[in-house]
């Protein structure tokens, strides 16, 4: 049920020859099945872009993305949807303001012609720790944390193997962040998802991820295990600086 991910020379280039602008010069990393892999880096370093490229929301890239050994471009749309889902950064923007939770969850089931709508929707809501009565609520009747849970339920309902998490907690306040992270951890233990998680909070990486890649200007500078954070085991100067800054900040708190 879990899948591995391999990304080789993922690049976005506008123009040709000398005047070419390399938006994403080249990203390569691989994620083992069932692993939680973090992507960290400063704003604009291309973390979210990598996720959008992988999910083919952005389609103008070159290189190769293999999911479970298959080229992502060769997987038919419906199968790809059931293999890979994404949780977005801003729960206030990722739920349709005029659709009830029921509509949000039923749509993917209808698109994919799945059976047992009611049971599946109930299970998805229960999985993310929301009461079943929330099915008939609209996003404006939910708090930020509840919205993000609904967004996670929407990602879960197609039973994917790979979840792309685009800063799933950065729009939430700290106590709610912890709840959502624990929820994601629990789901991974229960279901064995593979996570690729974008964040710029190293504390989140420390809590969630087995390994993480430090990105700078669209390139992966270094891939580190989680254990490298406390002692700052990075070798690349930028990665060292980032971890040191984060440790210093944590120390101050």
């Amino acid at each position, binding site marked *: 049920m879990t899948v591995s991910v391999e990304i080789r020379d993922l690049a976005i280039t506008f123009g040709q020859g000398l005047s070419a602008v390399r938006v994403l010069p080249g990203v390569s990393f691989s994620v083992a099945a069932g692993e939680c892999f973090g992507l960290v880096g400063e704003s604009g370093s291309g973390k979210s872009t990598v996720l959008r490229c992988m999910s083919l929301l952005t389609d103008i890239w070159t290189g190769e993305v293999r999911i479970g050994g298959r080229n992502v471009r060769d997987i038919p749309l419906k199968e790809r949807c059931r293999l890979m889902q994404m949780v977005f950064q801003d729960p206030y*923007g990722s739920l*349709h303001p005029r659709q*009830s939770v029921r509509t949000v969850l039923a749509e993917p089931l209808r698109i994919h012609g799945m059976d047992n709508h009611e049971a599946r929707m109930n299970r998805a809501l229960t999985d993310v720790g929301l009461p079943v009565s929330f099915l008939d609520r609209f996003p404006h009747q939910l708090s930020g944390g509840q919205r993000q849970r609904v967004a996670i339920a929407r990602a879960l309902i197609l039973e994917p193997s790979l979840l792309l998490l685009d800063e799933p907690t950065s729009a939430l306040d700290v106590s709610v962040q912890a709840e959502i992270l624990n929820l994601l951890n629990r789901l991974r233990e229960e279901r064995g998802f593979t996570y690729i998680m974008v964040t710029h909070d190293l504390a989140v990486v420390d809590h969630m991820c087995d390994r993480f890649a430090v990105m700078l200007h669209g390139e992966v500078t270094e891939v580190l295990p989680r254990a490298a954070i406390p002692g700052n085991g990075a070798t690349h100067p930028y990665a060292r600086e980032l971890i040191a800054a984060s440790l210093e900040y944590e120390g101050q708190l």
Partner: protein
Amino acid sequence: MTAKDIDMPAPVSRMPSSLRAVRNIAVFLMRSPPSAFGLIVVAVLVATAVFAPLIAPYSPYAQNLTNVLQPPGNGHLFGTDELGRDIFSRLVWGSRITLTIIFLVSIVVGPIGLIVGTTSGYFGGRFDTLMMRITDIFLSFPSLILALAFVAALGPSLNNAIIAIALTAWPPIARLARAETMTFRKADYIAAARLQGASPMRIIVKSIMPMCLPSVMIRLTLNMATVILTAAGLGFLGLGAQPPMPEWGAMIATGRRYMIDSWWLVTFPGIAILSVSLAFNLLGDGLRDALDPKQMNRR
């Protein structure tokens, strides 16, 4: 988001909640005098059209040549015209024609504008350019002139007038829907729908159209005033409803000849056109406030 909202019991089923939304909008409209006026006049217009046979004391076509050009009073509330027909009855029956025009134009123009606008806004690129140039072509004609040309080509009748008005009324709605679509086609919830494998048509119908609907409804309501005036204008020029139909514009056109001596022939149809188009304008204005997304939490 307050604690009260969260404790609010979830709606039991969908139908009551949408009915409640309609009621809330009506309550909101009644709170400000101008939109209350609009709502009441439109409600009176609809009631008049529905109950026309009960309200009108005479048949709109009944002539009485011994009783022509009578001033208001004497059993004729608004007087009689040059053929002795009761003007009040004609006005009452004319509300049916006005409502028919508004209704037909709206159900033609709304969907066309919405479909053209949302598809070109969502797909963008060449398709967008093509659709918007077509829209530009229709926009560049003054609407009354295009309607005139159309009616002149196909012959004057009420149906042709309706088609002609519809032809000129959809471009602004398409523009509006396109602009709305462009503001949220990159939104995360559209991306989420794409990731679920929804086809572009499904995304447009299920995700984009509901978002465009409020502003299109407002625009349609505001448009109705223009539609009434254009219809009356065509009627006045003899290109819309044909005699003896009691169309308000046509009534003014025939009454014009007797205007100096018999002011009631043109005044009452004029007041009817004025108040109904004003009512639709005010109602549209009120709807704009009532359907403001910032006030979504109230419903």
